[in-house]
């Protein structure tokens, strides 16, 4: 076949597929959000924003992202640099640390339920230490802080792995000569990290942050497993509109709001961590 046409033939299936199941649904969801029986209107948006659970679910989602994501960046950076200087057992340690990557958010929620539940292991441990003699119901409406902590821990536990993978791959791309040169000039490990690793890792950090922040706004199943209705989040409300209330227009409006927040934060991260032209490896 003509080599000028062949690449286009090869990318055609993906293009058609994404147009049908990625672009087209976005058009549909926008249409659904902006229309009621009377035609174009903002009623769906007004309805979801005025609902009393909206401000609290927005606040919960943002707070959770603000608490979880920075912690994950730090933890993933620590793990990635530790793996990088590892000589023996590197593959084994990396496998263990990336296990949560394959675990679904629902399963992660259930795993942490096994710890925080009334008959869970945290209660048993506290009993073993003599702190309590009766099991305490940790995940109740009287303990909103504990519910938040359980969800945050489950998220950190589950989703740090994806950042770790991206950062380890990124560190692998940094030429070893830079470190050798730095060592010759007597740079301390901290200097090497802050002056070489961090700046050169910026593209990877960018990717990792964008992906993580977007996934953080999509948090749903972990919350459903651990907090139930105690801790409303945006995605959970969307699900409730679609399923419990059978209100497709409102669900679509919620979807667009989540999308707008995601795009907004993506742009902020891209801008804040932008790589100067010609400065990439």
């Amino acid at each position, binding site marked *: 076949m003509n080599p000028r046409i062949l690449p286009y033939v090869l990318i055609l299936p993906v293009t058609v597929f994404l147009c049908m199941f990625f672009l087209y649904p976005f058009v549909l969801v926008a249409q*659904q959000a902006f229309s009621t029986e009377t035609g174009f209107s903002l009623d769906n948006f007004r309805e979801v924003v005025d609902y009393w659970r909206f401000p609290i679910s927005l606040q919960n989602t943002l707070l959770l992202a603000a608490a979880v994501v920075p912690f994950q960046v730090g933890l993933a950076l620590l793990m990635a640099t530790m793996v990088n200087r590892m000589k023996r057992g590197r593959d084994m340690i990396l496998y263990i640390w990336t296990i949560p*990557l394959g675990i679904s958010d629902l399963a992660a929620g259930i795993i942490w339920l096994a710890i925080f539940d009334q*008959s869970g*292991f945290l209660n048993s441990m506290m009993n073993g230490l003599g702190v309590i003699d009766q099991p305490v119901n940790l995940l109740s409406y009287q303990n909103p802080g504990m519910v938040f902590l359980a969800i945050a821990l489950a998220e950190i536990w589950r989703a740090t792995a994806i950042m770790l993978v991206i950062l380890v791959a990124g560190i*692998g791309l940094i030429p070893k000569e830079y470190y050798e040169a730095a060592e010759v000039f007597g740079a301390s490990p901290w200097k090497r990290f802050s002056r070489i690793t961090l700046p050169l890792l910026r593209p990877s950090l960018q990717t990792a942050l964008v992906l993580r922040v977007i996934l953080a706004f999509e948090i749903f199943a972990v919350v459903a497993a651990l907090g139930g209705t105690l801790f409303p989040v945006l995605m959970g409300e969307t699900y409730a509109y679609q399923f419990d209330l059978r209100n497709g227009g409102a669900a679509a409006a919620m979807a667009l709001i989540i999308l707008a927040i995601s795009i907004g934060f993506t742009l902020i991260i891209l801008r804040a961590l932008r790589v100067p032209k010609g400065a990439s490896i």
Partner: protein
Amino acid sequence: MTDTVAIDASADTRKWGKVLYVSTVVFLCAWVLVPIYFLLINTLSSPETVTSFPKPFWPEFDLASLTFFAGFDGMLSALKNSIIVAAMTMVMSIVIGAPAGYALSRFEFRGKGTFRLLILLTRAFPLPLLALPLAVLFIRTGLDDTAFGLALVHTTLAIPFSVLITFSLFSGIPIELEEAAWTLGCNRLTAFQKVVLPLILPGITASAIFAFVISWNEVFAAAVLTIENRTLTAFLLQNLNTSPLHLKFAGGFILVVPALIFIFAVRKYLFAMWGIANR
């Protein structure tokens, strides 16, 4: 005199640094593994032990919870649905995605940069939300509540990864090998079949497994798009409020096991894939 003291001190710091380093590694491994171990204990304990207090910290190897799980109405068919949807996603994402990966690695063509960027950008959207409009569309086309309809959405999730992984895999095979085959009388297709395909097959398998895991784990779209033919994640989510604890834990464990095996199988490719995606 002062010299030896200084050397001692620096050796001391290095020793303590080493201890700190190793204990941090051990702590972080425990941080990942211990919660999974707790789930294992609960799964392998009888329903009474699961809700007891205080709990034992080792499994009693009682299969009552798992038997209850297997006997729970609708659970096994949900498990079957999960496997069917994930298998469909696996096949579709490779068949559709791999040609594009090959095109990206082998050809310079107008619009290549834009195409790559668009593929990456699809990851920057909350994709499960697509299930909402598709739910309406699928009812019109008769795809609602079918494994195939859900697999289409899951393929959208998996395709960016399958394109990028196959792109990096094909890039790892020198084009000279193909060129040599062409001079020996192969055309593009036979050269691909006889030279590239055997080399690429393990990597393609890894990418397929990754697609399987993505579909297997997905909750939101599965819960929105299926009603009668629920997948395991959707089924567990729907019954979270009503099901007893031991059922949740057994279900969670069944969700975790294939993920553990699959991540082990694809661990080598995880890093290659992100390395190329960032460049």
